[in-house]
């Protein structure tokens, strides 16, 4: 680039602080501790204050939904950017988890305290079992097959009139009060977020990323990649099912609309906007996108147009996303130097 002073280029230098080197925390001053902790504290405190800060009844419901979408986005980001399986069928997880929680609650009379973990784990097992035959597929083929799963499940429920048919399952118990609902959801969200960040840096995370980058090489090292892929799908679909179970208990109803495309598209859009591969980004993306989409609810289907256009614009023109950009600005100095 040419400026007044002659040819210059932008130089980026990492800030001189490396923290987790082989498990040793080498932090030497309050400034550096602050540098590390502040972004994390902003997120944690922000999430914990949010239910207190929002007083409007309608927006209280919205932030619960945002939490669910954040979970789904996290699940998509993990499977896409750390394992390399691009699943376009997030709605399938939501549907399985939702229906399972609804059945456990209405038929067996279990309270949400039991149905939600059971639906998350049991639903994840069911999803993994159904996706097991597709795991050897790569790239586009896996994406297309997963896109079809929620569609076909919805059509089969409709055609066979099972699981309540088009009416769905009504009369699902709700949470005792909104504090339990929101704080348990946000608590789990934070737990999963920081848990996943640890997981992807452990040995198993390394194998996952190996599978993403070069599955043949991983296979050649004598590692059964289908086992690892199944484990990753279990983790990811578990989050989706957890979200679905929460959704059902919040709406007190489970139906075909839980298999709708919204639950596949919005998490993808928030991941793209927030920045794929950062894990925090998708959560941030959900917190930006879902409220905007709620504001546009008055315009009917225009909001779908709106977020598809945002999605398209980001994927084509700004594919790195907000969080990658922010992290670069935070962790690196930038300056112009003469060439």
């Amino acid at each position: 680039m040419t400026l007044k002073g002659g040819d210059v280029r932008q130089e980026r230098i990492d800030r001189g602080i490396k923290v987790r080197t082989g498990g040793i925390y080498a932090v030497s001053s309050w400034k550096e501790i602050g540098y590390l902790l502040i972004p994390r504290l902003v997120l944690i405190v922000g999430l914990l204050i949010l239910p207190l800060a929002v007083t409007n009844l309608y927006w209280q419901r919205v932030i619960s939904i945002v939490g669910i979408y954040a979970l789904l986005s996290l699940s998509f980001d993990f499977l896409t950017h750390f394992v390399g399986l691009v699943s376009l069928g997030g709605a399938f997880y939501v549907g399985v988890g939702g229906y399972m929680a609804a059945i456990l609650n209405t038929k067996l009379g279990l309270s949400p305290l039991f149905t939600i973990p059971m639906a998350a784990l049991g639903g994840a097992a069911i999803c993994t079992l159904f996706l097991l035959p597709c795991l050897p597929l790569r790239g586009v083929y896996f994406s297309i097959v997963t896109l079809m799963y929620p569609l076909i499940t919805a059509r089969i429920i409709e055609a066979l009139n099972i699981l309540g048919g088009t009416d769905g399952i009504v009369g699902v118990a709700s949470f005792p009060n909104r504090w339990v609902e929101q704080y348990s959801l946000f608590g789990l969200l934070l737990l999963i977020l920081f848990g996943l960040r640890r997981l992807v840096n452990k040995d198993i995370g390394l194998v996952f990323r190996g599978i993403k980058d070069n599955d043949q090489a991983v296979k050649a090292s004598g590692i059964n990649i289908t086992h690892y892929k199944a484990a990753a799908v279990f983790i990811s679909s578990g989050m989706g099912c957890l979200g679905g179970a929460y959704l059902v208990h919040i709406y007190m109803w489970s139906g075909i609309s839980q298999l709708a495309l919204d639950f596949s598209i919005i998490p993808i859009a928030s991941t793209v906007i927030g920045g794929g591969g950062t894990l925090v980004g998708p959560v941030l993306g959900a917190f930006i996108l879902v409220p905007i989409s709620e504001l546009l609810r008055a315009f009917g289907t225009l909001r779908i147009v709106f977020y598809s256009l945002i999605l398209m614009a980001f994927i084509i023109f700004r594919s790195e996303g907000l969080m990658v950009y922010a992290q670069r600005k935070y962790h690196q100095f930038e300056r112009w130097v003469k060439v």
Partner: protein
Amino acid sequence: MEILVYGIINSVTLALMALGFTLVYGISGLPNFAHGALYIVTGFIAWSFIHTLKLNFLLAMFLSLFVTGLIGAAIYRLFLIRVRGMATSEIIASYAIGLAILEGLRWGGFKGMTYTLPVFIEGSLQILGVQVDLQRIMVVVVGVVVMGLLWLFTHYNRIGLALRAMAQDERAALMLGIDSDRMAVAAMFLGSFLAGLAAVVLLPLGNIVVEAGYNVLIMAIAVCIVGGLGSWIGAILAAFLIGFVQILTVVYIESHFQIVVALLAIIVTLILKPSGLFGRQKELEERV
């Protein structure tokens, strides 16, 4: 007899829906998930031409085909070309565009009222003892003619040959002086044109509804996956396979299962043999 006649009609219908999709994928490797949206857009454009501009019926049809072709080419040139080669981004971006178009149309007032296109020819005919509308026979005729023309175009026309060269080996085509970006735009024009053609012959059989866009996309994907992505002969054979199975399910089970058949065909084919019946993709590219 009924099964045979309606099976053939249904198969040609499916083939028409899928031709544009498989053409674009075969040539530029783009899974065009906006295909269903382009189909519906043609219907609305033709409708507007006839009812607001009061154009002659046939003229309106042809104009709407060209407009759709241009829309498709513009979408490719302006947006999709930037993510070329990144299959997942292509899927998400084209799907987002399709979604935006369809939901935009739904928002823009094309709902509630029924919008219909006039049929080409009224009346019906007895074939092998089965009563068939002339429009449905028209669909079969158009389908067969289009397939024939497409074959001639890709075997005897310079642009057609260039398109085929690119489908076979893009690098070699580049070395022979074929501009691959321009050809990809041409392919997208042709693909959208074909989606539009399917729309103008198929839509008069029912109402123009936005939901049909999603169904057309699913059917096109089903046909292309079963036939093998990018293979034209495979797509046509797969259209016949799925077409007859669908008619059989409608006759012997229930019409609700028609779309389930298509979805199931996609899943089963992808799991067992991702390259489909006639795919040319290498085994290692699609599964481990």
